[in-house]
């Protein structure tokens, strides 16, 4: 018994190479790697596995006049939803952002509505 106890701490130390690791009790949380880092701020929008809506539906032209489509990417406060929450790819997010700003200028979308507390 004494021998086993003294041998045990040595073996793990050798294999880890000095990096401390709590033993057991940590559930493997591997989850979808790129998922948004936890609920924070406005999480009204889709937390799918980062699928760009425009790419999948093959929508080429993001029109400023199409306020219903644009409204899906705008939060309640009127702010544009960040890419990490909406899952839109970069070129589409840029065009979307531009279209939303154009729509705001022509009063199709608000600049700011219900303000954040």
């Amino acid at each position: 018994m004494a021998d086993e106890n003294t041998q045990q701490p040595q073996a793990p130390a050798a294999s880890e190479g000095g990096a401390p690791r709590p033993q057991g009790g940590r559930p493997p949380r591997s989850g979808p790697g790129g998922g948004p880092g936890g609920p924070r701020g406005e999480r009204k929008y889709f937390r799918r596995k980062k699928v760009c809506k425009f790419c999948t539906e093959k929508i080429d032209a993001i029109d400023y006049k199409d306020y219903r489509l644009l409204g899906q990417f705008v939060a309640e406060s009127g702010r544009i939803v960040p890419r990490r929450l909406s899952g839109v790819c970069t070129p589409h997010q840029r065009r979307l952002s531009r279209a939303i700003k154009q729509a705001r200028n022509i009063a199709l979308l608000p600049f700011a509505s219900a303000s954040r507390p």
Partner: protein
Amino acid sequence: MFIVRPDLADEDVDKVVSTIETQVTSAGGAVKNIERMGKRRLAYLVRNFADGLYILLTIEGPGSAISEVERRLRVTEPVIKFITVRVDEEQKRLGKVKAFRDAHRRGQGTHAQAAAEGAQTAEPPTEQAPAQA
């Protein structure tokens, strides 16, 4: 696209639109399309109006004509807001994308291609901003 005050009578609105049209043609441009999008509630108060009549004008012409039209819109009293969006580059890009897609689609089934082409060619001439694919 511009917004006209909502308390104007129909014929006044027509007068405004035709005035703009004549200004476009006199400045050397061509009006491709006029679309009246009807009365809509504005997202915020513009000159103390809560609604407005939206009108979309698709114009083709040199830059000087466009800026002249903008200048006139600014001083026209019934017009409360306007925005000019340039679409020629976007149309070019869309045309390229569509051509690319059609070339690809040609390899697979002609039925789908014919239906898609029928839908796509109807859209571009009627909109100022690029059409949805």
